[in-house]
């Protein structure tokens, strides 16, 4: 269980909304008193309704992996029915399976399609926010087509309101596009790290294609051809396609601008550039060769440079292939195969719809609050841009204590408003290299590029240390909406610069932390 009863109650009180009440009623009705709460927050990508075509917005607005606010309110789950893979990536090691490991390619247990379908119904009945079912591995879904499509068929027949999506390396995509269309899978993610086979040869040691193992440049050429063909075929059929790219400094970092252009011109609607995860203890090729991941500033700079071309996604948590819950809040431990098989599942589509209708009201309130605050910024002229870190556990509000935060959401503030630009993990880690370090010091390093940190509450000691590091702790917006508060803070920040009370200082870089979560 993620929450004990007390924590759960706290979450609901702080959410303080009819959504939480309704959720609790549903939870109680289902005989589960502690499943409620708005959950731990995620964040917001830059992509909102304003940036997307209306027909695309309609499709993604309830999809936590795709839209700015949806992931504050909706949950997704992955079922691990696809263990086999047909390519080898230098950032992946399938052998490593620490129970606390939280990254793609890793799961605790495999499921049959029948077990997976039952799990989906069990989770959807307990968590009405669950609107999306994804198959993302732990291998490649399309290297396991029979299991993947059997799972989709079972869910499509019993829970037609659940959106289906899959994430693939694209090698076999062209062969399965018609089946994907048949099961109404309207969201597909392709991981595309290169469109140049010379660069591909540094990322993929081999692929298995048409009963042969290909290596080097030849392998990468086949892979890129198949990926781009698959993308074009999806676009032709009106199936939404997101592209994931792993940013590997010195290998494909500059090249990803070219990848961005290539996928945009073929109809991808969203590009998600993620930092390389390469801790040595994962045993990946990149981990062992010492290939580093990008810093926060490098990642943001690349995302910013691609943003002019298309919508960028910045809230990806690089989840496991069996994750359950809101982004950033893994509840998979509640739904192990043993527990699911014992559950009596009563799939109540009406209570799910009632919950989701309330969520829409809450979302609208947040948008209105932001809009109203934004209007007060009109007329402000300044080139100043700052980053702030926000401690939140959901609902788009500043509602987490500094000391309890496992991650911070980062917003960029300018006279244009408050824009979500990423998140920083500051949770406890497996001991790989971080064990002896003072935790406050590591938190400061993770948000070192921020001018302020918004919290619901903060103790005296960390306050002093943050101030010393040049980060202003801000608790005056406790439980308020994040974006509305951020805009108000920024107005005040500009005023304080004008009055000479503070001096605007350009902040340094920050760390992107990686490694396994320690739950507890």
């Amino acid at each position, binding site marked *: 269980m993620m929450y004990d009863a007390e924590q759960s109650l706290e979450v609901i009180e702080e959410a303080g909304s009819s959504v939480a009440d309704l959720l609790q009623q549903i939870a109680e009705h289902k005989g589960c008193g502690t499943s409620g709460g708005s959950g731990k927050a995620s964040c917001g990508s830059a992509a909102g309704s304003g940036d997307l075509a209306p027909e695309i917005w309609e499709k993604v607005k309830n999809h936590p992996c795709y839209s700015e606010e949806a992931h504050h309110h909706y949950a997704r789950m992955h079922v691990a029915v696809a263990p086999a*893979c047909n390519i080898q990536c230098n950032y992946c090691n*399938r*052998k490593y399976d620490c129970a606390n490991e939280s990254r793609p390619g890793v799961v605790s247990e495999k499921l049959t399609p029948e077990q997976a379908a039952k799990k989906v119904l069990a989770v959807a009945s307990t968590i009405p926010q669950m609107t999306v079912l994804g198959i993302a591995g732990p*291998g490649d879904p399309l290297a*396991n087509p029979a299991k993947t499509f059997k799972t989709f068929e079972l869910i499509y027949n019993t829970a037609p309101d659940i959106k289906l999506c899959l994430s693939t390396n694209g090698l076999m995509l062209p062969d399965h596009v018609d089946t994907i269309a048949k099961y109404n899978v309207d969201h597909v993610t392709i991981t595309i790290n290169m469109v140049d086979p010379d660069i591909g040869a540094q990322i993929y040691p081999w692929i*298995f294609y048409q*009963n*042969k193992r290909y290596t080097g440049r030849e392998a990468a050429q086949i892979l890129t051809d198949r990926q781009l063909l698959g993308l074009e075929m999806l676009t032709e059929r009106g199936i939404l396609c997101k592209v994931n790219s792993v940013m590997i400094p010195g290998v494909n970092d500059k090249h990803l601008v070219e990848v961005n252009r290539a996928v945009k011109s073929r109809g991808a609607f969203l590009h998600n550039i993620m930092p390389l995860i390469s801790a040595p203890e994962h045993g990946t090729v990149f981990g062992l060769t010492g290939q580093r991941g990008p810093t926060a500033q490098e990642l943001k700079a690349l995302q910013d440079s691609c943003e002019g071309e298309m919508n960028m996604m910045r809230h990806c948590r690089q989840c496991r292939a069996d994750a359950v819950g809101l982004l950033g809040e893994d509840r998979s431990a509640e739904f192990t195969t043993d527990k699911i098989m014992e559950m009596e599942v009563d799939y109540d589509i009406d209570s799910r719809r009632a919950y989701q209708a309330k969520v829409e009201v809450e979302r609208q309130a947040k948008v209105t609050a932001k809009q109203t605050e934004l209007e007060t910024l009109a007329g402000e002229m300044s080139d100043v841009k700052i980053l702030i870190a926000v401690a939140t556990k959901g609902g788009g509000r500043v509602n987490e204590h500094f000391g309890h935060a496992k991650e911070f959401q980062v917003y960029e503030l300018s006279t244009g408003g408050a824009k979500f630009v990423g998140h920083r993990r500051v949770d406890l880690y497996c001991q790989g290299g971080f064990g002896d370090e003072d935790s406050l010091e590591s938190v400061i390093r993770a948000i070192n590029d921020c001018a302020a940190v918004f919290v619901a509450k903060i103790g005296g000691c960390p306050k002093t240390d943050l101030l010393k590091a040049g980060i202003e702790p801000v608790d005056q917006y406790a439980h308020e909406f994040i974006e509305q508060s951020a805009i108000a803070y920024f107005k005040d920040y500009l005023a304080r610069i004008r009055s000479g009370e503070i001096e605007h200082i350009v902040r340094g870089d920050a760390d992107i932390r990686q490694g396994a979560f320690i739950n507890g």
Partner: protein
Amino acid sequence: MAYKIVASQCTSCTACEAECPNVAITEKGGTFVINPKKCTECIGYFDIPQCVAVCPVDNTCIIDNNFPRYQPRA
């Protein structure tokens, strides 16, 4: 001879099971095993043994020296 799978290295990813043209590979005790009576080393089907080509862990599908090399019928 036939191929065999080094159990301590097998990740149970199932990739080999689907590729074997002889349906010689099954799950046993959490990892996968090759039935040496069914394995033809892919001779007559493919240029390279499919389990070797698709396995994500090098040197996990290897020749089992306890069996004579497979002889295709003339």
